[in-house]
């Protein structure tokens, strides 16, 4: 999306003379830049082309039909596909819920860990563990050991307390997946907010204390505004990863009703069984358009953080 800008950056200056100082400066950058263009932008362009064809996987069909240009048929089909709309809605719910919950819980944890107590370092170390686990393993742990109606701890506890057992994954697929995502991402948010809390200048807080401000007043009027950019950064980075959630869905529900997000739906339409690369590419392109809209906004946030850093 900003490839055009990068191109401009390369073309400007003394074109042609490879030994000019401008080119010598750019040279160390080129391998990395070309690599990223090749591995992200080229496939994207090919995807756009695929989306205008009826390409299918030859090895998966009995009667291979020749690939032909179908114009915007795939996009028209997508527009009237209720499952795709449902997947978008699921994606939105999953991302917003998981990001907000992990941000709120992570902030509470960070406030707790910002205080001094015995074993502070140990508890912080333990708390970040879920974030380090393979997403696949995290999902399996919750599926098999926590939610399962056969071996699950949660249902054991419910039974012990006299409640009926709950079929967590089949009755609440979205809730179950969001639980795992929140479990993994809360430590991440905690670390970011903790960095924010610890970068807070202590002299201002001291002054507020001397002036007789209450702890809550200090938190609301001084700490929270200071934390804002950290919270934004956490939300932004969390969204990048969570909107692409695949592993937890694949392992826990295999894309059952109510838990298929857009990436998983596109996967199901293509290499996950449908093998309709042309149609699936059209879905993917639409996802990219959404992503560009979100990313433009997100990059603006990141860029403002960045300018603060430059000024500091």
């Amino acid at each position, binding site marked *: 999306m900003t490839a055009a800008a990068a191109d401009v950056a390369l073309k400007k200056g003394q074109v042609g003379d490879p030994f000019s100082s401008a080119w010598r400066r750019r040279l*160390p950058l080129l391998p990395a830049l070309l690599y990223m263009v090749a591995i992200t932008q080229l496939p994207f362009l090919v995807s756009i082309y695929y989306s205008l064809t009826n390409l299918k996987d030859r090895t998966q069909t009995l009667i291979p039909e020749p690939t032909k240009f179908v114009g915007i048929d795939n996009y028209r089909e997508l527009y009237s596909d209720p499952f795709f709309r449902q997947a978008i809605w699921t994606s939105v719910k999953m991302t917003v819920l998981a990001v907000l919950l992990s941000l709120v819980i992570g902030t509470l944890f960070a406030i707790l860990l910002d205080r001094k107590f015995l074993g502070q370092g140990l508890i912080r170390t333990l708390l970040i563990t879920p974030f380090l686990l*393979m997403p*696949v393993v995290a999902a399996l742990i919750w599926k098999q050991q926590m939610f399962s109606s056969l071996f699950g701890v949660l249902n054991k506890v419910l039974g012990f307390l006299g409640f009926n057992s709950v079929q967590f994954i089949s009755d609440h697929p979205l809730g179950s997946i969001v639980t795992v995502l929140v479990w993994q991402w809360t430590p991440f948010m905690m670390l*970011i907010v903790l960095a924010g809390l610890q970068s807070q200048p202590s002299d201002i807080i001291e002054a507020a204390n001397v002036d007789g401000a209450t702890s809550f007043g200090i938190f609301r009027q001084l700490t929270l505004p200071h934390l804002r950019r950290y919270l934004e950064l956490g939300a932004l980075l969390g969204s990048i990863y969570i909107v692409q959630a695949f*592993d937890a869905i*694949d392992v826990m529900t295999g894309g059952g009703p109510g838990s298929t997000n857009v990436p998983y739906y596109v996967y199901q339409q293509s290499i996950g069984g449908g093998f309709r690369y042309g149609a699936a590419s059209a879905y993917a392109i639409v996802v990219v358009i959404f992503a560009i809209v979100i990313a433009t906004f997100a990059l603006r946030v990141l860029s403002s953080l960045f300018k603060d850093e430059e000024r500091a």
Partner: protein
Amino acid sequence: MMRGTRLGVGERRAAVVGVGVLAWVVGLLWIFPVGWTLFTSFKTEQDAAAQTLHHGLGFGRYSDVSHSTTGVLSLQTAFMNSLVVVVVSTLIVLLLALPAAYALAIHPIHKWRDVLFFFISTKFLPIVASIFPIYVYAQKWNLIGTREVLIFLYIGINLPLAIWMIRSFFMEVPRELIEAAEIDGTSIFNQLRQVIMPIAAPGIAATALLCLIFAWNEYFYALQLNFANGSTMPQWVVANVSTRGNFLAKLSAASIIACLPVVIAGWAAQKRMIRGLSMGALK
């Protein structure tokens, strides 16, 4: 600790103890699923399924999962695949990212900000948007099921992150040192090796670690492009889920084995990791 200091000494101590107890309870509850998995991994399959403890604890399941049955992906194969893919891709990432970060931090090129944002914008590009062409061409070029295809892709996943991180670490190298080296006519390669790298070394190590973690945990590409003998650790764990017979204890042991290297590395580097994760935007 400056906050909330207008309490009596006794009250303050009570508050400190209260916060400590609360933090411990919350922390232990949060990692309960991990602790439970560790516990299950030492049980026999019967005990694990029935959630009892009649047969004691032991390392039996660990030896079960590390001894392969023919026709099934073995731990040794998956581990070697993961190791090669993760280490090679991380080395190449560093090889590409170090000079790039130099061009963006030490002698910033014209429009360096746009280039930097181009790199990060690729992280917003949904993987599904590029997976078909990659899949189709990987098939064409007979790369499906090879380590090489995963190495290519993991470089793409980690390179933007690495450039951002290393750039932020390079920004902290004192300019006088670099200028002095330049006056002496030191080449870029030697500047990197003799002046910049020693100072930025801890940051570069943290970057490498983060790349290792992300590559080690990656599942989607590995599942799509690399099944059967080329499989990596996440697939090996999933392969321990069985539809026949009890598998809970074995699955737990496999999960612990698969996650342990990364968890220990992450614990050791937690302070630097946070800066890496925030793409160098936060100090």
